[in-house]
């Protein structure tokens, strides 16, 4: 057995004294059944034209059985999803200090511009002469990304961060293959996000873990000891997942290159350094950028994202198809390999997350070079402010300063009977989304706080006050209070054990006997 951070996934039962209602609703907190439980045959939420009278040419493959979809009217559907939305926390409602997620404000100008028909209503396979504006937008975004990172090439197509990691690591593999250099290992710090080793393993690499040193950075000596002719590269996050700038990154890059390998950077934490540091100046060969983190495209309840990857000159020939080039006849989308290039293939059906490109470019243009730099500085300032105001009552994992996120461990909860999870659940009742918990794995019971630049000092003070009170309560021995948290949310703690032991992953129509009950 090699994992020791199991934690309770089943809640303690026990109600909270509350006003009972007949309807089950509680004021503005509505109970809302599944859409499948509300339909009635004969209802519809759309008004479609008549079906033109034609022969049928389906080749005999026509559906014979009903699907079983519910039929609802438009008002019902609008109310259903409105009620669902009201059960969600969101950036628009409050601070989301999730470390490494960069939950900054999602500008509405982005939404307006992404919906212009000239961007939203264009088909990916339209002839180039009809979509010059779209190709130019991609080219402009590529330019901003290259200048911000100091890297000469970029792939826009990856669909999200993990996809970008796959893209960057595949380029590295392609480069090694091109020089007939068989290497089978990739080095990944212990503190890395799970997508890093998962990506390396998917590409057939053996993953070797590098420990962190006492200062929370990659142990350079340990790293160098693992270098050899079989190491394809190292995947670093900078700033790292402990919120710290990898001070030795230039040396790590140099040593890695000297050993014939490459440096991949996970750009999830780019928000700390935009406009202050260029990854290209650090020796990075490939870095994915999360447009949905650093560049404000909305998280949408889990996606969609966009994960463009910037490349060094060494990897530029391997950038995947398709990409935009500018020539005498305007912009062109290159979809087949051209002379001198050795693209490693296509990653998605089409060219990338255009909807996110529009949003990200609008954000970049709104901030400009000066605003982007200011945003990074404010993000770092906010994290350090939170760190300074909490470190006397919670245990900071490392001495400051931090970058854009502050890491604490659960040492301050020792012998209280209260866990990191409990603290998070108590914070929910305080009206804050919890910070990232139990990540990175290099500290015990991690609490990783990333305020972003969008929060006012007043909000941070409010957050700090709540967290100080929660910490104090934990230390006072009131464990029972925590185990029953949260109390004020649409649902109390949910039984994740049951969900995993007896998976119910979809609704099923009740059996006739159930329906009769």
């Amino acid at each position, binding site marked *: *057995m*090699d*994992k*020791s*951070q*199991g*934690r*309770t*996934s*089943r809640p303690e039962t026990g109600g909270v004294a509350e006003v009972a209602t007949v309807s089950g609703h509680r004021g503005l907190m509505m109970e809302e059944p599944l859409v499948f439980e509300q339909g009635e045959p004969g209802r519809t939420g759309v008004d479609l034209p008549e079906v033109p009278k034609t022969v049928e040419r389906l080749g005999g493959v026509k559906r014979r059985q009903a699907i079983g979809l519910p039929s609802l009217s438009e008002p019902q559907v609008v109310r259903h999803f409105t009620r669902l939305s009201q059960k969600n926390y969101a950036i628009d409602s409050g601070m989301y200090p999730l470390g490494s997620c960069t939950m900054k404000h999602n500008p509405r100008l982005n939404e307006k511009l992404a919906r212009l028909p000239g961007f939203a209503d264009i088909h990916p396979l339209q002839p180039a002469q009809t979509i010059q504006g779209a190709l130019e937008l991609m080219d402009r975004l590529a330019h901003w990304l290259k200048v911000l990172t100091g890297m000469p090439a970029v792939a826009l197509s990856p669909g999200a961060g993990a996809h970008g990691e796959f893209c960057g690591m595949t380029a590295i593999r392609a480069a090694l293959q091109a020089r007939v250099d068989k290497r089978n290992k990739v080095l990944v710090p212990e503190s890395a996000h799970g997508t890093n080793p998962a990506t390396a393993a998917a590409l057939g690499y053996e993953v070797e873990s590098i420990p962190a040193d006492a200062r929370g950075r990659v142990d350079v000596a340990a790293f160098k000891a693992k270098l050899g002719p079989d190491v394809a590269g190292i995947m670093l996050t900078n700033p790292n997942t402990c919120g710290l700038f990898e001070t030795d990154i230039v040396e790590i890059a140099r040593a890695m290159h000297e050993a014939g390998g490459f440096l991949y950077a996970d750009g999830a934490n780019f928000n700390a350094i935009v406009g202050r540091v260029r990854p290209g100046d650090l020796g990075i060969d490939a870095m994915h950028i999360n447009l949905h983190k650093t560049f404000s495209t909305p998280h949408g309840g889990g996606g969609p994202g966009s994960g463009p990857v910037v490349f060094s000159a060494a990897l530029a020939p391997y950038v995947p198809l398709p990409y935009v080039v500018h020539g005498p006849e305007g912009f062109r989308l290159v979809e087949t390999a051209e002379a001198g290039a050795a693209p490693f293939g296509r990653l998605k059906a089409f060219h990338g997350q255009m909807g996110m490109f529009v949003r990200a470019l609008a954000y970049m243009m709104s901030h400009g070079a000066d605003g982007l730099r200011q945003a990074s500085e404010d993000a770092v300032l906010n994290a350090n402010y939170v760190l300074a105001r909490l470190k006397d009552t919670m245990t900071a994992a490392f001495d400051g300063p931090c970058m854009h996120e502050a890491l604490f461990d659960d040492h301050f909860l020792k012998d209280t009977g209260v866990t990191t999870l409990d603290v998070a659940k108590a914070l929910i009742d305080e009206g804050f989304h919890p910070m990232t918990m*139990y990540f990175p794995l290099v500290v015990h019971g991690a609490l990783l706080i990333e305020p972003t630049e969008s929060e006012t000092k007043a909000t941070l003070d409010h957050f700090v006050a709540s967290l100080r009170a929660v910490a104090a309560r934990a230390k006072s021995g009131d464990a029972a209070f925590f185990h029953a948290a949260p109390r004020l949310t649409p649902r109390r703690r949910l039984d*994740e*054990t049951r*969900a*995993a*032991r007896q998976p119910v992953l979809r609704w099923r129509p009740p059996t006739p006997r159930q329906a009769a009950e």
Partner: protein
Amino acid sequence: MAEIRFTKEHEWIRIEGDVAVIGITDYAQQQLGDIVYVELPAVGKKLAKGDEAAVVESVKAASEVYAPVSGEVAAVNDGLGANPALVNSSPAGDGWFLKLRGADAAEIKGLMDEAAYKKYLEGLA
């Protein structure tokens, strides 16, 4: 009652007739929390000492269980499919994982006995 032995990775092993029964210890199940799923090897699979024998999952973690000795899988505990909670409630009894045939008895005897394992646990605290 057959003599039980333990590994540093918190597996227990016990000879019963011509097979060795293997499971995880009470300490391990406590560390993992509620067990939700156990991935067991195929009957007939040959395991070398130290090979991954099973994977035990809680909601937030998946832990490998390693073969404490070499042998061939003679049986697996099918009851864990319907009731993984047995690993929590009866880790040394009904929560057993697998039985190995052809294990070296001397190799088993060479592992930590109950007293040594208890001492080892105290050292971890």
